[in-house]
């Protein structure tokens, strides 16, 4: 019975589950950004929205049975040796063609997760935190001049004096 449930999960739910959750998180974030009244809450929504996008990208790069995208064929002890060898070899290897390379140069691409989405998402995280920081600074300025972080209260304050 357990096996049946497990296989059902694995066949039908798991393959797209990440994408579903990403959509749900994105909807939560977007909804908060649009409808929340408090500026900080809007920003939390924004952060959730951005992590949802990261979830999408990272899920793309996942491979079943894959490792992290860092190559480590050799143990720690021959790492040094190898580095020394390499300097010696590099001159001779430079002219030799591909086939003569050592065994560990042949890399099975299915053994490593796709690094590109990770790189992209590093950038996206940085952009996210930058936006968050700047937005927090702006909301502090808003609080400084209006004394509140609630959007409706700010608009109430503006209405008598503002003309638009």
């Amino acid at each position, binding site marked *: 019975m357990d096996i049946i449930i497990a296989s059902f999960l694995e066949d039908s739910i*798991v*393959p*797209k*589950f*990440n*994408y*579903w959750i990403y*959509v*749900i998180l*994105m*909807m939560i974030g*977007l*909804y908060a950004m*649009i*409808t929340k009244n408090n500026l900080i809450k809007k920003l939390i929504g924004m952060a959730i929205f951005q992590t949802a996008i990261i979830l999408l990208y990272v*899920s*793309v*790069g*996942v*491979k*079943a049975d*894959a490792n*992290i*995208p*860092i*190559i*480590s064929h050799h143990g720690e002890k021959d790492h040094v040796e190898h580095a020394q060898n*390499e*300097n010696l070899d*590099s*001159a001779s290897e*430079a002219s030799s063609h591909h086939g003569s*390379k050592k065994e560990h*140069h042949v*890399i099975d*691409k*299915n053994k*490593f997760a*796709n*690094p*590109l*989405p*990770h*790189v992209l998402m*590093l*950038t996206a995280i*940085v*952009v996210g*935190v*930058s*936006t968050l*920081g*700047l937005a*927090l*600074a*702006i909301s*502090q*300025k808003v609080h*400084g001049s209006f004394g509140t972080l609630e959007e409706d209260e700010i608009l109430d304050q503006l209405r008598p004096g503002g003309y638009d």
Partner: protein
Amino acid sequence: MKFFGLLSVIIVGFLLLSATKDFPNWGDEDSPANSGPVSSFYIEKTEEKTKVPNMVTAVLADYRGYDTMFETVVIFIAGIGIIAVLRTYGSNESIPKNQVGDEGAGLLARMTCSLILPFIQLFALYVVAHGHHSPGGGFQGGVMLGASYILLALAYGLARAKSCFSEKRTLVFAALGIFIYVGWGVLCLVMGSEFLNYSALDSILPGGVEMARSHSMLAVEIGVALTVTAIMFSMFSNLSTKGRLDKGL
């Protein structure tokens, strides 16, 4: 407003969900993204071309180094943007020396902080330097280094942290970080290659073309780390004092 918000969110949600059935399965090795030539190139050729086992670092700092340069610029913009928006140059900018350390956390927290801070900073430096072989790199290390100063400010008060890392110094460090990154790229230009083409530097760096790339990556990572450290601290110090830089949390 709520209704329209909900409506638009649901429409977008359904739009996105409708596309997911068309996606390759999660973890599919043969999806275009995972088996495509670009990704395969990164996995198969990175070590050969750059001698960097951590593909993420290699892609980040070399293949897509131009992106990362702008990523650093984004951080930089956030830093000076916060200063531009929030900073007020009041009269009480400098707190007398004898008040240093008046604020901050209790004794226990201070002791703990002073114990772990060196290790945090050491580890941060390790992360920056060892990003080629293990997870990490300039950005993560920089954030940790910045966080160590934030911790200092939290435990001993902002004034104490500012004595190590004054505003002027944060700006200099931030600019210096980007200068190192961009300058490294310009160095490649001067050597007669494209911008950020580190292979041009093999004549001045030891270890051949591949190692030139590897060393260059370290250089730009250090640049990133400098900027990120400075900006993270500047961000915190401005946000925690409403731009007055007088007294922390």
